[in-house]
């Protein structure tokens, strides 16, 4: 019933038509982030995401974490505090990366770097389709 009503909306209809079926593997498909690894506490407005890099020396770990953070900042109401961590024992420089990801100023600085921002936008664009 609801779906039918939504389809009655010309805006939705057009967008569905334009959607590109091809997209690369997502973090879910790679099991980097799973539903179990996300804890949400709605009352206390707190979210914690624990992700698992594919290999111990994964150079993308920081970028993945940054993407997760940006995606959450943009998708969640501002009342939430977001905590992003690497699963214990799955990365060589776990502590450093964790520190980087949860330091507000460092994140802000990273997002001011245009090259880095472009990479993140590229990563996130399919999720906003």
């Amino acid at each position: 019933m609801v779906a039918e009503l939504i389809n009655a909306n010309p805006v939705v209809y057009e967008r569905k038509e334009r959607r590109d079926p091809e997209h690369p593997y997502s973090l879910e498909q790679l099991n980097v982030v799973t539903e179990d690894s996300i804890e949400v506490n709605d009352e206390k407005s707190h979210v914690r995401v624990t992700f698992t890099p594919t290999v111990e020396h994964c150079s993308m770990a920081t970028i993945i974490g940054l993407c997760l953070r940006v995606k959450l900042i943009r998708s969640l109401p501002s009342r939430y505090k977001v905590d992003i961590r690497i699963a214990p024992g799955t990365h060589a420089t776990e502590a450093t990366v964790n520190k980087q990801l949860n330091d507000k100023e460092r994140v802000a600085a990273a997002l001011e770097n245009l090259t880095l921002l472009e990479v993140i936008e590229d990563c996130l664009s399919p999720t906003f389709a």
Partner: protein
Amino acid sequence: MANPSSWTPHVEAFVDTSRPPSEHVASIEATTKLVNNDLLSLLDLVKEMEMYLTTSDHVIRSRGILFLAEVLARITSKPLDSVSVSCLAEFFTSRLSDWQALRGALVGCLALLRRKGSLGTIAISNARKLAQSFFMYVQVQSLTVNDRKLSFEVLHCLLEEYPDAVVVLGDELLYGICEAVDEEKDPDCLMLSFQLVEIVIRLFPDPSDLVTRFAGDIFEILSKYFPVYFTHGGGDELHATRDDLSRALMNAFCSTPNFEPFAIPLLLDKLSSSLQSAKLDSLKYLTNCLRCYGADRMLKHSKAIWLNLKDVIFSFPPQRPLVLTTESSQDTERVEHQIGKEALSCLQTAMLCLTSPDKDVFINLILEDEDVVKRFGFVLNEGYSVGTSVDIHGQLNALVKVLQTLATFPEHYSPISESVYHDILLMLISVVTCKYDDVYLWNLSLKTLGQIGSSIEDIHDSAKGTIYSRTVVERAISLLQVDDTALPLSLKLDVVSEIGAIALDPMSRVLKALEEAIVFHISKACVDGRTESAETAICLLECYSCKLLPRFCTLQDFDEVLVLFAIRLWEQMESLVASKNEIKVQGLLDSLMMTMKLLVASCSEEQQSLIVKRAYTIVSAVKCLPLQPFSPSSKLEELRISPGFSIHNWLVSLFASVVIALRPQTTLPDVDILLNMFIVFLLEGQLPAAQALASILNKWPSNGNISELSSVYTFDQAIDLVLEKCFTVLSSSSFLANFYSSNDSKINAIAGLAWVGKGLLMRGHEKVKEITMFFLKCLLSSQNSEIMQLNQKELDARSLLATSAADAFQLIMSDSDVCLSKQFHATTKPLYKQRFFSSLIPVLLSSVKEYATMNTNYRTVLYRAFGHLISNTPLAAVVAESHKIVPTLVDCLGILSLNTQNKDLIYSLLLVLSGILMDKNGKEHITENIHLVINLLAKLVLYPHMMLVRETALQCLVAMSGLPHSRIYPMRLQVLRAVTKALDDKKWAVRQEAVRCRQAWASIA
């Protein structure tokens, strides 16, 4: 002719085994070229090579022979005279006994055997000698893989190309082949050897002593390979795969019926193997063997086959839900699924093949099988635990499928006897009548019965038809007659609709029975005042009108049955009027009316006039109905009717339903009296009467031939009278004064007028304008300056009147399925909605402008009317006018959103807005009013009363992010603020849309 010295080095090079293989090949190629170009004759070559071919050094001899053979194999397209071929054949045949030089001999023989027709081939006698020599000297299994393969190829060629030469060898041939293939292990060689067996057996025409004698031995060799099991070489395309091998072996198994005594026990034995691939293979082989071995041989295995198949079918249901986690379990699942499918197809083949002229052994086996009965009985009597229901569903499905397959054969080819057919039907119908608590089985059985029924070609004139109608149709109908069976009514109705749908005859019988039941329950409900009977009658009527009637009309047009039923219902009413009983259940009247409408609508004109006449006689016999002709002089008071006679309301409503469903050409008796009566009831707030009036006006013949319709009025006169009366009453001060007496009838009277307007509008009559103007007046009446003097009660009455008038526009514009629809033969002018829209929109827009300064409460009704008009007009028409309406539409949405009760209207208007947003011109007009639109959407994003409104508003905002950058950029922060709040929405869909919207607007920076 080439000098020997020019090519002898090639021979030397080849014979020297210490040289690299590439040089060997090169030397052969060079010599072949010489021969092909006639620079060297084959005979010369042989003569010059004599030393190499006959020397006692076996290394040199074997290389020499191989050289000659290789050259020979490369000149297949060069014609050779029969003498040289014969010479060479004799030479290579003799060399077969030379085990040390066997390779060359085999290659040579093969090259000769493969030569094609006109280029010179081996004579039959030579070929036979070759074969004999082969069987005498070549011990295939003691050779290397390559030589074995060559040997099989030689045999293959012999059997394929020279069957006449070898078939006379008889024993010797079969024995030789057995010996050659026995204990073979290489997959490629096995492929060849399986084919060899198949070909050699086919060489001997079927009843052949020879094959019979050898069948056991040959099968013993073959049986060692079943089931084919090997895991070697996945990716290599050149080599045989397991499937290839299995197929080749299957063909060998099927090559002669003589294998039957050995093959069938083996296959049945392997069927119970724990290895799934073995099971699958056994089933496939069994299916094929059934076809190839023939009924005579297979009949004696029937029982064993059935027992084994049954086990497989019961433990591997073909349907399984796909709840899979890992890949390996998916694989097993797939194999199990295949086994189930293969088992069913095997069963099907068995049923087709295992028949003998006198009795259907196999089918009887199935039907008599205790397990089948038990399975059924198990489900029938015990029920089962939920955990295993999936398996049982699969089994049941398979079982019922089998029964259905059996029962749906065309009569002449039917594999089952009539009594078995009867048994099947009986089993199914008993499930349907008794076992209703198992929903799955019940539905399955009912569907199957329906399908069996539809497969009967002629239900009157065939044995099956008779059995079916005696067993199934009668049982189904009796369900309606007996009240005390435990089967719930809704299921009973499902049964009769399914059974009735199969053909005309059962349908008529079901309709008849249903009719009886309906009449019975109506009289019970009305005379004895039993509520449960009324409820039963409602269900029966719904089943009759919604399920059976449409199907019946596709089977036969204009059947008398419908007329008779309609008249019968009227007579029922007549007796009720006489008995003066009160009828309390309103739902019953609604169902009766709907049934009556559908009945009448599916009749022809003559039949309709019959019904109308009968109904009119009954209605006009009632004293206290206002049945005088309508006259302009009659006072309002005369029109008033005393309240509280529900049976009369019933009669008028029912009569109205007849009128609503009439075809335009059907004549009405005493139109003037009817018009009067319907007007009176309209003004009393009886919607059916209003609909009937609208229907009469809508279908009034337009050609001016009035005489047959009414002797009193022309069409225009009639309209004038109706409108005048309505306007006088509805705008009189007493009507207004009583309006707020919390009585729906006044509101209904306004709606009734709207129905009349709809009728006129649909046929394109201009008088609809008067009605529209009346409604507009009502709308604006609450906003006149004199209202200041009115007291609160009157104010409320006025505003309620205005709201009803606004809602009248929805009624006029929207499609309805109770009246004035295509089904009820309404006259419809094309594009009438668009016409109405474009004539009304300027008036409404100017009123909106005029009252722009008024209090929002007053403007709400105006906007409500506007909203109803816009949202019911086809989108294209609205979009074309978008330049005029966008600002008003936005304003309208803004004001309507202040009130909870307008939420559906808001949603439809929002859809209109999004439609405009998708149009090229529409976009421009939105852009012109971008501030207004964004302000509105930013509010609607948080609209608390309807999730769809919030979601659609966000979607519109996303779409708007594509408008020209310079226009939207200033709005960016406002939108983002609004959307950020929407991120915290309590509905997931809205949050998701909000994320998209936020991203879209954040990225335009």
